[in-house]
């Protein structure tokens, strides 16, 4: 059912049949690992890219087979080829894996983790992560031991603790694999966060188990104190990770508070701090290791796994404050870089897995392999069902059996386990991977999802109504909880928000921003977009009559909206911005990044629109020429009889802006200032609207006339705008708006092309 996802799990056979107590780390770590030549690495990555491209060109294939499986197959082919040629195929070196390949993926996942569903389901996630993993480990280990005892032939020399050790490695769900598969099937958010969250948090459990088993396997006996120490160790590991993460996060936020003058290095800060947190936990692990449990291993095998947990926290905490502090551009940079890196790492990992499978001597023991697979499956299913039964008693939204199935199915083991086992190289037994099973199950998960009609991720965005009303309900629930005297979920969330607002933000966020002027930026963006789209839609037949009625339309007769009450084109853009405003202000302080899918990004209106702006500028020039031609009566009017609000705004506006009025002939340059989220472009835009509005009225009545309607709200905003407006030239965005269709309204497009 669930895929052991094609990730190899094998160890080397120990040549010494008797001495099974060889500590894994005693053997030279790099010995079995073929020295990685550089060129295959580079070649592989180039190949990976080509393959990925090719993959996307064959949509049919990609709809059946998850990408990860294909990549493994490719890896196999490469490995096979290399062997044929006589080269030794490179093998995945663990430190490469842990130091270079894994961090971007974890970073990416952590950075875009949707925090709200995560915290809401934290209890469930923890249950699955801790209890579920424990159960899996013991079940698989135990049964395998049983099998080994039964079988005899090759496996007779395997003892219980080795089996348990193996079980502990294989029992944990792997984030890389989960991400790879789940993203493609667009499962609904709840399930995604459950499985993914579990995969992130179970690291601590696995590490401790691993360590304990190693320890015990040397000592030989287990007693109660050891178990107790194990628990302590676990707590230390997990909490230590969080603490380290928090420290680095605060450091990062604090640093970024002072970077307002050197914006270029902000992304660097993010990456550096995150990576430092990742590495830092590694070091700490050594010193933090509980004194009672003797740490045998000088190697950081399990430690590195633990880094996942702490780095997640680190990044999460970093991003909380950083997002507010860093500039828009930096944020975009980080976003794209992370996606890029994590995609590349991901691809490389899978390919290497494939290659490594072919490489090196393995011993293939069918019985062992098959039984492992079966036991893992059974363990997983039993674990999920059992846990859900218990958990559902505490949840309001219960997990249905369909959900359980997907969770069980999606419990993929993967690359991390692979690397861990690789490092074991002590040997217990060798097995080949369960590629076959993996590939088959990996392929079938998607049609199964469709078949079961599992609720997919809600594709449509929430409407403004939903946004407002859900916030309202949040407040309502908090109030009711207070009345009941019940310290529930809402209560704590509210408290946390308040605390955050009062103290944390003041300290960690640069001064002038702590009052959330992001709102202003958003609002401006919204207004500008609306203006753009207004013009665009105005060029067509539909006149959006659904605009704020505060703007008077004295010059233009609004057309009757179509009967079917279709919302005008600007709705989406506007909605998005309003939604952003609401989100940032309705007592919620964190900007929620909607998509954590590796392949999608929340598109940035600035980015999208820029090119089109440039293109449209030309059109606009021609338009201007046309206008000036039929211009005899298009003298610069005094100004159109605006509503008082508009007039007021204009009076209060930047005097420089008035100058524009006379330059009807000159083609204003378009200056889109992307430097700061506080760019006042949209504000200036609005100014021009009023003035220009009447002019083109005669010739291009529909199109230009619309401009008048544009957000008077934005005009009044000018009053409150900080003074930096005066510095910026009120270049003519109007013109751009006149002809610019504006950024694509669809903000959450599959942003695929950035990774060819």
């Amino acid at each position, binding site marked *: 059912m669930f895929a052991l996802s094609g990730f190899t799990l094998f160890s080397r056979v120990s040549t010494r049949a008797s001495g099974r107590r060889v500590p894994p780390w005693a053997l030279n770590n790099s010995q079995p690992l073929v020295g990685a030549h550089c060129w295959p690495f580079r070649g592989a990555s180039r190949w990976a890219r080509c393959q990925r491209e090719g993959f996307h060109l064959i949509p049919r294939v990609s709809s059946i087979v998850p990408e990860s499986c294909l990549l493994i197959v490719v890896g196999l082919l490469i490995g096979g080829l290399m062997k044929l040629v006589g080269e030794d195929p490179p093998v995945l070196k663990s430190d490469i894996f842990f130091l270079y390949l894994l961090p971007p993926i974890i970073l990416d996942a952590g950075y875009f983790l949707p925090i709200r569903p995560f915290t809401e389901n934290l209890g469930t996630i923890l249950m699955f992560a801790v209890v579920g993993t424990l159960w899996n480990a013991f079940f698989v280990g135990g049964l395998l031991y049983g099998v080994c005892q039964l079988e005899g032939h090759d496996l007779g020399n395997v003892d219980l603790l080795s089996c348990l050790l193996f079980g502990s490695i294989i029992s944990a769900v792997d984030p890389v694999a989960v991400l790879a598969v789940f993203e493609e099937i667009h499962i609904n958010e709840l399930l995604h966060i459950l499985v993914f969250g579990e995969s992130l948090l179970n690291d601590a459990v696995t590490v401790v188990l691993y360590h304990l088993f190693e320890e015990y396997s040397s000592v030989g006996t287990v007693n109660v104190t050891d178990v107790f120490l194990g628990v302590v160790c676990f707590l230390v590991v997990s909490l230590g990770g969080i603490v380290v993460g928090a420290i680095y996060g605060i450091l990062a936020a604090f640093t970024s508070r002072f970077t307002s003058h050197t914006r270029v290095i902000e992304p660097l800060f993010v990456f550096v701090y995150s990576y430092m947190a990742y590495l830092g936990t590694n070091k700490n692990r050594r010193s933090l290791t509980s004194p009672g449990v003797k740490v045998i291993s000088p190697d950081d095998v399990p430690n590195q796994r633990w880094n996942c947990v702490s780095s997640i926290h680190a990044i999460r905490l970093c991003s909380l404050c950083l997002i507010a502090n860093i500039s828009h551009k930096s944020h975009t940079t980080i976003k794209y870089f992370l996606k890029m890196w994590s995609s590349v790492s991901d691809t490389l990992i899978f390919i290497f897995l494939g290659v490594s499978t072919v490489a090196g001597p393995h011993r293939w023991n069918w019985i062992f392999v098959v039984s492992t697979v079966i036991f893992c499956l059974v363990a997983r299913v039993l674990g999920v069902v059992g846990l859900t039964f218990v958990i559902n008693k505490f949840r309001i939204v219960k997990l249905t059996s369909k959900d359980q199935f997907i969770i069980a199915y999606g419990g993929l083991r993967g690359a991390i386990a692979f690397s861990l086992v690789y490092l074991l190289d002590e040997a217990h037994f060798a097995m080949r991977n369960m590629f076959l099973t993996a590939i088959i199950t990996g392929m079938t998960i998607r049609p199964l999802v469709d078949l079961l009609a599992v609720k997919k991720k809600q594709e449509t965005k929430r409407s403004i*109504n939903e946004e407002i009303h859900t916030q309202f309900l949040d407040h*309502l*629930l908090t109030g009711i909880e207070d009345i009941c*005297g019940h310290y529930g979920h809402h209560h704590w969330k509210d408290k946390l928000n308040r605390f955050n607002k009062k103290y944390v933000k003041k300290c960690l966020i640069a001064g002038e921003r702590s009052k959330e002027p992001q709102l202003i930026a958003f609002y401006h963006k919204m207004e500008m977009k609306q203006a753009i789209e207004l013009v665009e839609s105005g060029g067509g037949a539909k006149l959006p009559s659904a605009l*704020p009625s505060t703007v008077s339309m004295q010059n233009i007769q609004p057309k009757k909206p179509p009967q079917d009450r279709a919302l005008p084109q600007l709705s989406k853009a506007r909605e998005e911005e309003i939604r952003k405003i609401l989100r940032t202000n309705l007592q919620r302080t964190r900007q929620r990044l909607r998509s954590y899918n590796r392949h999608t990004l929340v598109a940035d209106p600035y980015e999208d629109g820029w090119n089109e702006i440039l293109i449209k500028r030309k059109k606009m020039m021609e338009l201007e020429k046309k206008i000036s031609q039929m211009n005899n009566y298009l003298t610069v009017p005094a100004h159109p009889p605006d509503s008082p609000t508009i007039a007021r705004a204009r009076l209060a506006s930047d005097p420089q802006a008035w100058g524009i009025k006379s330059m009807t002939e000159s083609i204003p340059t378009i200056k889109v200032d992307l430097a700061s989220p506080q760019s006042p472009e949209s504000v200036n835009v609005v100014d021009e609207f009023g003035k220009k509005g009447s002019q083109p009225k005669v010739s291009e009545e529909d199109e230009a006339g619309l401009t008048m309607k544009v957000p008077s709200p934005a005009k009044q*905003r000018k009053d409150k705008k900080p003074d930096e407006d005066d510095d910026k030239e009120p270049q003519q965005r109007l013109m751009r708006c006149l002809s610019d269709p504006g950024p694509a309204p669809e903000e959450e497009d599959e942003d695929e092309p950035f990774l060819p």
Partner: protein
Amino acid sequence: MGSTNSTLLKIPNVEVLMRETGFSPAHIIRLHDRFKALDKEGRGYLCPQDFGAIKELAMNPIGDRIIGAFFSPGKETVDFHTFVKILAHFRPVDKDRPKEPNSPEPINSRSNKLKFAFQLYDQDKDGKISRDELLKVLRAMLGMQVTEEQLESIADRTIQEADLDRDDAISFEEFRKSLEKVNIDHKMSIRFLR
């Protein structure tokens, strides 16, 4: 169970209450204790000041509306029955309840929950959320961070989205429709009140 039984007996008409609201005896008792704790002077009913004494509620942007919801129009006090009935709205929905054709809809049904929320918006009880009422709510929630024009713009947008019959206000049906994708059972339930 002796003490709980006696407490139950002290509350008048407790069986009726339990039947109407669906609360279990344990819940009733818990709510009764809470009621008594709020009713500091032991009068047997609550007045707005008692609610106002709850600190967190004072910080809640719609706190006064919530308090107002407890008091039916014209009445100045809330007795225990009303208290419990209002709170019954927030009980999680019983999925397995058999649908008896003649029984009235339970207080915690999805529709009733929505009605309760709707009433919080609609202060003048005309059955519609007018633009002004919406503005008031938005102002309360968004507070000092948003300008008046933005608020108006948002309010207009909201009405425009939801308003199907073009009367420039949101009726209950439109309200319900706009929330059809939201899991009200989850959003408007307190686990405690199971």
